[in-house]
């Protein structure tokens, strides 16, 4: 069987297309690279959707944490503490248990039945947890940036008579993003890394449709040889990380385009590990 046939059979296996049975013997390098790459589709999906949706919640949470009112500040502080203070692994377990407890037939709301069974599937349930998790981490970053918006900027906005939404939209938010961007880049990278935990923490992979690490583990279980599948996963993630750095670097340049070149902050990959 040529490598092209293997790619045809397994390139979209993680979505349920192509060959139904996973390879069982005579594992070739091509099969491993293709199948693990197919699993990467899920990692990219979880990462992108959680990041984009989490961004908006994070902005709201950061504003709430910086608010003067206790009723806004306290819930935001607790939300951030709970999601940043506990392991993502445990969060996945708890979320799965809660989703399983939801009534199978759905919940009646105003005479309409809201289906709930899809929340136990990884594509929705795990995504929801990742969304809340990244929102909490990003909110802390945005909050820190919001605190360090230069006093002169806000005073200038006041002097122009800007208030409320206009002041936020034109002055606070762009500066906050600009200051937070290097740290937010790190958050994005490690969110993608965290997506590998999904299928290790309660959420089952239906019909062997899993992510990159799920397939890597499948191969290790079958061949007892960790020296090929895991480095393949590592290679894919290094590529993904490089792509993210390029993308976020371009955004960073755009956010800082009004500054003199020597004042522009550089993106720096800082180590951070498990969440």
């Amino acid at each position, binding site marked *: 069987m040529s490598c092209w046939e293997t790619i045809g059979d397994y390139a979209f296996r993680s979505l349920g297309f192509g060959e139904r049975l996973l390879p069982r013997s005579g594992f070739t390098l091509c099969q491993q690279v293709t199948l693990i790459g197919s699993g990467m589709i899920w990692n990219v999906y979880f990462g992108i959707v959680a990041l984009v949706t989490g961004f908006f919640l994070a902005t709201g949470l950061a504003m709430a944490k910086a608010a003067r009112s206790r009723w806004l500040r306290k819930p935001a502080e607790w939300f951030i503490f709970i999601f940043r203070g506990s392991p993502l692994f445990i969060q996945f377990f708890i979320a799965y248990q809660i989703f399983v407890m939801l009534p199978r037939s759905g919940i009646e709301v105003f005479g309409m039945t809201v289906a709930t069974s899809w929340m136990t599937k990884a594509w929705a349930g795990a995504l929801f947890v990742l969304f809340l998790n990244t929102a909490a981490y990003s909110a802390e970053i945005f909050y820190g940036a919001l605190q360090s918006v230069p006093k002169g900027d806000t005073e200038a906005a006041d002097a122009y008579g800007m208030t409320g939404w206009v002041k936020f939209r034109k002055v606070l938010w762009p500066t906050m993003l600009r200051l937070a961007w290097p740290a937010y880049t790190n958050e994005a*990278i490690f969110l993608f890394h965290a997506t590998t935990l999904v299928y290790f923490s309660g959420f089952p992979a239906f019909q062997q449709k899993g992510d990159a690490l799920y397939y890597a583990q499948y191969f290790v279980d079958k061949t*007892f040889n960790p*020296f090929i599948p895991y480095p393949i996963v590592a290679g894919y993630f290094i590529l993904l990380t490089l792509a993210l750095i390029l993308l976020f670097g371009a955004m960073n340049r755009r956010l800082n385009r009004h500054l003199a070149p020597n004042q522009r902050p550089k993106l720096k990959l800082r180590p951070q590990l498990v969440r």
Partner: protein
Amino acid sequence: MLASCADPSVLEGLGWLLCYLTSGTHIAFYWSFVTVLVLLAVTAPVALAFGFGGAVAARSSIWPISLLGRGYMAMVRGVPDIVFFLFFVIALDQGIEWLTHQVRCPDWTDPVRQGLEFRVCPQAKVPPGNAPQVWHQIYGFGLAVITFALVFGAFAANVLLGGMQAVPRAQLETAEAYGMTQRQVFRRVLVPQMWIYALPGLSNLWLILIKATPLLFLLGVRDIVYWARELGSTKTSVYAYPHPDWRLYYFLALLVFYLCMTRVSEILLGRLTRNLSRGQATAAGEAQRKAAGGVA
């Protein structure tokens, strides 16, 4: 176990709960919290030592050593931690068995890697096949500690190198001007001063280490996640204490445990930062001096 718990089927209410929570498996569950704490207590100093070694190596003027240190630090970046955890444990396990195989069975002719299987001679099994179960558990735990220490050591090396580079050059040059040797400068000036610069990074790393402990479960150690899943799952009436699926409550207990660990660590590390800042030429040290009524 309490004497009144002899026949659980006649118990009710609070008495039942008390007996349930002191059953043999629950005692093992409580001990697994100690396992996690021991892991933290052992891993943190070992990782710090690895990190210190890595940072010193990276600063070395001999380039093979410097390359080794930098390579070690660069190793864990860009790759999900969980991949490292899964990879290292198997690689370490097989590496150790391969080495003992080479030493103990030099005239073994079969290849070690037979297609799908990794097969060493029976004498080279670590721990020996006939060893009691407890040795297998200790060996597994030891592998986990080494894996954690290796991965976190690389991150600690990064932080410590940053701390070393942040010590003002003038301090080192002054020490040299006093006629100290490089070794003395390192021991008496650089190392005592670097901690305050490294502390924010190290605190962060400690909090991350706490949150990484559930990965023990993936390494096959019977840790708190294992027991929470085991004890919480539905128990039918064949068991002494039948109950429905209670995993949610067990995981909530774990959540509270981790949140408490995080909070307590944050408070203690905050105090440590204040103590270490005393008399340092940093913004925090300066603020303390002014608050104490020093000369402005």
